[in-house]
């Protein structure tokens, strides 16, 4: 069975190589076929692995070769499969396959399909490596690899400079987080002498007591990496802009998989984090803050994909909150369900966008529910899951688990934040659906919407719809033994919480329905003048982080660049050259060509010589 494990990433890699070395000779269909097939085969391999694992849940390690071997520094190209990575692997290849398939519909007629699939396959390859890597360096390889693919895919429509800059921003901001992660790696390696995750987690408790400064610092650094990748405060600004990429990309990378890598990292390193309770709490607090901040920002967006982007941040905030509460399995569970319903939402949004001739401003859509029934259904199911509609949706179970764990761990603040977040989620979700699908069609694009057709369009939506309902929640991740057991608590409290949470979600929906269906005018007035408008704008710009970064970091940097661009340090040496030249000119002036002057100089020199000799005794 061990050959299956490498296959999961070698197949997408093979796809990438095939596509990129084709030098443009492959047609659209062939590219899509190769791209999808490679992921499909990878998914098959994964399925086999899952089957095997369910049969005999043992940790599998496959070492391909030693990557580097210098003294203690012995990272391998080794893969480790356990319940956690298997869950992620399933999500990646499974959801990945669906999205690849959908992309075949979405991207039809675009130029550079080959390139698109090459990137997508590369992404799957990197992501799989990220979750399978048995040491942090290999994890980092995947980590950076997905970053690159994210960059490339965001900038896929390269002709618009803004897309390029969005990609640029995404890469740079995550790179900032990556640097923290890297430093964390340095620190861990120095302290523990290994990068192998299993060994690390084994040695850490032996070396450090709980709350030791070093381990806190190490955990903090890892957290920094996770924040960047998972778009949490304060490194979240890139995600909304990342929506410049094709929608399947947003679905795969910026909703289902890559952005959850941070969650995976923390869950993977949970023993380290458990040694650092302060950092763990910080994780939860950041998650809670992101949850709320992104929730409010999502309220004020007008672009479908940006709403979803903020919603993604917010949901990942939930996962961080869960991590902070020590509910690692809940986080992973939510990660999985979130991957389903958020992918569904994105793909549905993609269907809407393509159907409406690339119109994605909600203010210019509306009244689409009849024309695009499948997309509408997708939105409704996905939205319900997102808003955690009780009992019938996958989102309800996972979110409930998180809230319950927060309560059980005694983090009251986190619980409240989670509830408020749920309330906000319901509001913006319904707002999104109402604005997009109901009311009047507000532009020609919306009026002439054409529903998508074909298997590539339908199958992924339907499968994801199914997975987003309570059926998806049946897929319990096999995390036992990998992650610490969930907190126990009294069942009574649990039920009470479930009821409260359901009420909150329903209340949110009701409020949204009331606001956006009944009091639309009032709302429009409130948000167009006075404090309301200001708040609205503030939310619309997601609390102004972008502006602050722009003013505080980006502009000063470019000012520095401009100040230095002509290489001032080298200019100093230029001064020397100028001095030499001036001296040369001055000395050349003495070459008058006049005999008398030459004599004068000689006599002067002689006088000096005699004088010196007379004086120096």
């Amino acid at each position, binding site marked *: 069975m061990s050959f299956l494990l490498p296959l999961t990433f070698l197949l997408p890699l093979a796809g990438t190589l095939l596509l990129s070395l084709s030098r443009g000779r492959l047609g659209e269909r062939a590219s899509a076929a190769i791209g999808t097939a490679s992921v499909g085969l990878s998914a098959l391999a994964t399925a086999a692995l899952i089957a095997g694992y369910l049969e005999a849940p043992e940790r599998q390690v496959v070492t391909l070769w030693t990557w580097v071997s210098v003294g203690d520094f012995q990272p391998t190209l080794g893969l480790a499969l356990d319940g956690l990575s298997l869950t992620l692997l399933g999500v990646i290849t499974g959801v990945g396959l669906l999205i690849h398939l959908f992309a075949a519909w979405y991207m039809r007629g675009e130029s550079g399909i080959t390139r698109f699939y090459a990137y997508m396959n590369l992404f799957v390859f990197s992501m799989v490596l990220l979750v399978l890597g048995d040491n942090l360096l290999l994890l980092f390889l995947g980590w950076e690899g997905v970053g690159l693919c994210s960059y490339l895919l965001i900038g896929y429509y390269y002709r618009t400079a803004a897309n390029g800059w969005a990609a640029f921003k995404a890469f740079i901001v995550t790179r900032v987080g990556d640097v923290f992660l890297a430093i964390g790696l340095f620190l861990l390696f120095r302290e523990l002498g290994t990068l192998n995750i299993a060994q690390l987690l084994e040695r850490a408790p032996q070396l450090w007591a709980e709350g030791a400064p070093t381990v806190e610092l190490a955990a903090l650094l890892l957290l920094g990496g996770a924040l960047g990748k998972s778009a949490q405060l304060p490194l979240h600004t890139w995600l909304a802009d990342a929506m410049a990429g094709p929608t399947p990309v947003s679905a795969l990378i910026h909703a289902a998989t890559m952005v959850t890598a941070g969650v995976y990292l923390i869950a993977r390193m949970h023993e380290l984090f458990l040694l650092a309770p302060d950092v763990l709490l910080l994780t939860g607090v950041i998650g809670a803050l992101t949850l709320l901040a992104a929730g409010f920002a999502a309220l004020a967006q007008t672009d479908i994909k940006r709403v979803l982007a903020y919603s993604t941040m917010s949901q990942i905030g939930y996962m961080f909150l869960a991590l902070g509460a020590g509910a690692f399995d809940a986080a992973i569970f939510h990660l999985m369900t979130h991957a389903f319903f958020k992918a569904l939402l994105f793909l549905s949004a993609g269907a809407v966008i393509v159907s409406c001739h690339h119109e994605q401003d909600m203010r210019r859509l509306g009244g689409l529910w009849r024309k695009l029934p499948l997309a509408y259904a997708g939105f409704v199911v996905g939205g319900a899951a997102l808003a955690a509609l009780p009992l019938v949706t996958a989102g309800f179970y996972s979110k409930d688990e998180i809230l319950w764990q927060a309560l059980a761990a005694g983090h009251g603040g986190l619980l409240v934040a989670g509830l408020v977040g749920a309330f906000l989620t319901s509001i913006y979700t319904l707002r999104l659906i109402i604005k997009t699908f109901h009311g009047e069609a507000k532009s020609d694009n919306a009026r002439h919407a054409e529903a998508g057709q074909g298997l590539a369009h339908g199958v992924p939506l339907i499968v994801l719809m199914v997975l987003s309902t309570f059926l998806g929640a049946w897929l319990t991740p096999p995390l036992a033994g990998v992650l610490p057991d969930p907190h126990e608590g009294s069942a009574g409290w649990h039920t009470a919480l479930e009821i409260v949470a359901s009420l909150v979600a329903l209340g949110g929906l009701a409020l949204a329905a009331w606001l956006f269906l009944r009091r639309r005018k009032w709302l429009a007035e409130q948000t167009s003048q006075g404090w309301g408008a200001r708040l609205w704008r503030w939310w619309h710009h997601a609390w102004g982080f972008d502006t602050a970064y722009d003013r505080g970091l980006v502009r000063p940097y470019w000012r520095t660049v401009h100040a230095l661009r002509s290489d001032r340090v080298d200019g100093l040496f230029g001064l020397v050259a100028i001095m030499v030249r001036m001296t040369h000119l001055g000395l*050349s002036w003495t*070459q*008058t*060509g*006049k*005999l*008398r002057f030459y*004599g*004068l100089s000689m*006599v002067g020199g002689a006088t000096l010589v005699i004088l010196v000799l007379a004086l120096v005794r």
Partner: protein
Amino acid sequence: MNGVPLDHALVLASILFTLGLAGLMIRRNMVFVLMSLEIMLNAAGLAFIAGGTAWGQPEGQAMFLLVITLAAAEASVGLALLIQLNQRFKTLDTDAVSRMRG
């Protein structure tokens, strides 16, 4: 004390030498420049004579002889160049021969 102190003779030579130098630096006319050179060589000769007589050796005078030889040779060549200068530049101004500079 009978006789001339050596340093007095040398001072005389120095004075003549410096005068020659001054002439060299001041005059622009090539004739004067050549004359100044003769003065300087002569002053050097005087210094040799003074040294030689002070030490009671013939070497001083022998050196003087050599100096005279040189002076004669130099004068002849110098004057030949002077004539050539006058012919080509129609002047004896040494500043005229300052085409090369810089």
